[in-house]
């Protein structure tokens, strides 16, 4: 197991190298530069030129890339051009809300999707199944900013039950914090729930149609026991995969939700940085998100191998 882990980790290095090259090239190719964006209302050309020189932005691209990579290998992700704070600090500040949002959204999604997915599969073609499948479809097919807008309108403005913008840390103020994260978590969670419901349902159906299930039923085991004892365990494997993959994408992928609800998360950080051409910040955050994604994939793969012994010894 340890050797497998090491091998997998080493295998991620070329991928990460490609990501660094890709993000560097991409952000430097976008028109415009951070100094112009920062000092839009200033006329002073000399100040701008000095700032550019100060930041090394006037040097040839390959040199800038080499410098960045050099610092990277020493563990230095550089500093944001706009607020001159280390990239790590910028991310550190924003990771908490993102993680909390992702966790809450996943929690809501599981809470909703698990019973619906199982029931839909267990009672195939019944009313429950129809409702469940429709719900899943709805969640996948609605653009999430539309969901967000409707939620804000209903719960925030009309009913005034929940706050519609801003972030309160649930670790500091549990009640207010949870309330501030509820609407965004529901927005994200709905789409997640839909995906998980579908996966769970289809993998449950598959598991339930296995021969040994028919045997168990023939032996007189009740439906509930069949589901619980046999089908569920096997059905969980693809679901765990999906959950892991989704979690991996949630951190950097909740951009729209963060925008609409004014949450200071990582998604918004990186998109704002792209708009402001804040090169070090974009490069650093994209790299970190990529690392997070790769690691979560790795964890899922290992988990998968652990759950399903057939895959373990490869």
């Amino acid at each position, binding site marked *: 197991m340890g050797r497998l882990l090491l091998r997998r980790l080493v295998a991620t290095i070329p991928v990460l190298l*490609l990501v660094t090259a890709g993000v560097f090239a991409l952000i430097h190719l976008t028109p415009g530069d951070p100094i112009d964006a920062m000092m839009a209302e200033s006329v002073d050309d000399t100040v701008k030129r000095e700032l550019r020189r100060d930041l090394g932005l006037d040097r040839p691209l390959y040199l800038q890339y080499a410098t960045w990579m050099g610092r990277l290998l020493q563990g230095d992700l550089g500093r944001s051009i706009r607020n001159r704070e280390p990239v790590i600090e910028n991310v550190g500040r924003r990771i908490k809300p993102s993680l909390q949002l992702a966790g809450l959204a996943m929690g809501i999604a599981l809470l909703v999707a698990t019973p619906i997915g199982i029931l839909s599969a267990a009672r195939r073609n019944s009313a429950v199944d129809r409702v469940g499948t429709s719900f899943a479809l709805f969640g996948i097919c609605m653009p999430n900013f539309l969901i967000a807008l409707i939620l804000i309108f209903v719960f925030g403005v009309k009913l005034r039950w929940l706050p519609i913008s801003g972030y309160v840390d649930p670790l500091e103020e549990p009640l207010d914090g949870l309330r501030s994260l509820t609407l965004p978590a529901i927005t994200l969670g709905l789409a997640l729930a839909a995906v998980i419901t579908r996966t769970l349902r289809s993998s449950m159906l598959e598991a339930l149609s296995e021969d040994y299930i028919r045997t168990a039923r023939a032996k007189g085991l009740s439906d509930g026991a069949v589901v619980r004892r046999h089908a569920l365990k096997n059905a969980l494997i693809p679901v765990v995969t999906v959950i892991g993959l989704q979690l991996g994408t949630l951190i950097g992928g909740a951009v729209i939700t963060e925008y609409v609800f004014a949450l200071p998360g990582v998604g918004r950080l990186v998109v704002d940085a792209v708009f402001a051409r804040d090169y070090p910040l974009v490069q650093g955050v994209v790299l970190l998100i990529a690392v997070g994604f790769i690691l979560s994939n790795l964890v899922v793969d290992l988990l998968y191998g652990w759950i399903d012994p057939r895959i373990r010894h490869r």
Partner: protein
Amino acid sequence: MAGSTRGSGIAEPARWGTLRRAAAARLAPFGAAVLLLAVLGAVFAPVVSPHDPLKQDLDRALARPGRAHLLGTDNVGRDVLSRVIWGTRVSLVAGFGSVAIAMVAGGLLGLLAGYAGGRVDGLVMRLMDAVLSFPPLVLALALGAVLGAGLTGVVIALGVVYTPTFARLMRGQVLTITAREYVDAARALGAPGWRIAWAHVLPNATAPIVVQASLSVAFAILAEASLSFLGLGIQPPAASWGSMINAGRGYLQQAPWIVFGPGAALFVTVVGLNFVGDAVRDALDPRLRV
């Protein structure tokens, strides 16, 4: 994806049989109908639209849905229904265009990787992994900014984002199919690589690719809407459903039809595409047939 690995247990997929089974799936006709409607609407937009989608009438801005304007008018007095119909073109081009790019690029890459194996396989798949681990919205945004504003930029950007999915899928199919006996037999008989690819691999790989494509088109259309939200846009005055929703969201309280017209169109089309995709996927594996 849970069904696809099982599906490959079938010896020789009968293509017509697959289609027949797909058609028999309960919701497939609805999905196909929606798709057909969308395509027809897009193609015949000039004929079908009740009004000119670009004609502004500032005196009649934000008019409620009524006889003259079935879905009301927007903030500069344009007929929402006509804009939704014309928007079908843009959304479908964005959806199908980006998936087409992804299918071709990803398919070729996957074919190459699966067939060539070894170092080439490693390099290609690493590249795909790199693209996959890039946060997709950021990738699309940055690519769009580099490629320049407009529909082309969006289509290419989304195409790049979806390429790894198809590459992986194709590669998996290649690996599975080339491991089968009849391919070995073909090889033993001396058939050249490309011929095997053409005659055996591709036909058998198409089904899962088609399933993935139909689902990806749905996601691409939704992704384009998200990109409009963030400001990467179709150039006005052309409008996609996504940019219409974005432009109309400030008016949600006063004139919700501006958002719900294109929103409903978006939703129904995406649902339809999902039905079609599901139907084909279910048809692949008779055990999962609903």
